């Protein structure tokens, strides 16, 4: 096997450098986001998050079948007096396949006698190789505690309001493809 040594390899159109190494992040992508303040008072029932956080349309198409996927969720969660406990489940499916729950789940507990205080929750999970170059879809579902499980997504206020998104905060899902 021959070896070519060169300082750089560029494409002719614009002289941009080309390269790839094992472990490199081949693509980083925001696959879903939701900006509206959202309330759900279903307490102890499991439901999908609103918009493309939960409707199953958010996906990423790996360049290589042996790549691994680094999943990250960033959710903006608010409290209303007195406490909230929210549990989130994460799922993927390959193409038109079935949803598979993976261990990217996370939770949030808040306790405060104020409305509108909020926390940004970030959770990351490194999936194994899914052996596919088909689009991999993701979604998040939520179930609340039976006594304090209301969900207040994207709600936040520094003045005690129990509604609205003062900081125009955003909840989102991101996926990074890691080369193997």
């Amino acid at each position, binding site marked *: 096997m021959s070896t*070519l040594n*060169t*300082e*750089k*390899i*560029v*494409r*002719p*159109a614009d*002289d*941009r*450098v*080309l*390269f*790839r190494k094992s472990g*490199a*992040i*081949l*693509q*980083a*992508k*925001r696959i879903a*986001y939701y900006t509206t303040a959202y309330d759900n008072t279903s307490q102890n029932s499991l439901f999908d998050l609103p918009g493309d956080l939960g409707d199953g349309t958010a996906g990423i198409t790996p*360049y*290589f079948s042996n790549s691994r996927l680094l999943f*990250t969720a*960033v959710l*903006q969660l*608010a*409290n209303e007096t007195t406490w909230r406990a929210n549990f989130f489940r994460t799922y993927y499916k390959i193409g038109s396949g079935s949803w598979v729950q993976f261990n990217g789940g996370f939770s949030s507990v*808040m*306790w*405060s006698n*104020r409305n509108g*205080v*909020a*926390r*940004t929750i*970030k959770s990351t999970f490194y999936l194994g190789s899914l052996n596919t170059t088909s689009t991999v879809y993701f979604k998040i579902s939520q179930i609340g505690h039976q006594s304090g499980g209301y969900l207040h997504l994207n709600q*936040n206020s*520094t*003045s*005690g309001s129990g509604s609205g998104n*003062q*900081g*125009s*905060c*955003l909840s*989102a899902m*991101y996926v*990074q*493809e890691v080369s193997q």
Partner: protein
Amino acid sequence: MATLKTNNISDLSGNQYGFRNGTIIQVRNYMYTDTHFRNGNSEERMPNILGNGLAVITTHSNKNHIMLETTIQSGQVNTWTHMLYRFYYKLGEGGSWTQWTDANMNTYQWISGVSGGMRSTSNMAIFDPNYQGNIYFRITFSGNNNGDGLHINKCNSDNEDAARNEFSVASTMTLSEIWQDS
């Protein structure tokens, strides 16, 4: 040294090597490890590199995107605090500061009568600046009308209101440039 120009480099199985849409091509990290306290609830800049507007990444093309990952270590002093962190960017040294709401985040702590606790809060955001050159970033904070102030990196296990970073934490901002073909 020679320069080789090509549209594609593939291995023997036909897999393409090289940058593709989404590839991270550079990472910059900024951190603050001192402690910092501010009272009040008006919007102010974060201390030092987190808020002075000198955190920068230089994009190689106006096609490329920026990914931000931040961790803020928010300390607590009797009894509670709530902070709204806002993020701003500026295109070039002479540009104007623009709020990047996609990255804004909140944190709060509430333990009656307790000091020295701390919460680590992180975010992630991606955007298309449509700009080649230096892009600057800064963070501000706004406290709750009724909560205590900002206690960056303040943490101890002795229930004290002390300007001490007992656990050697850092508040950080990481900027990555994401390649885009077009």
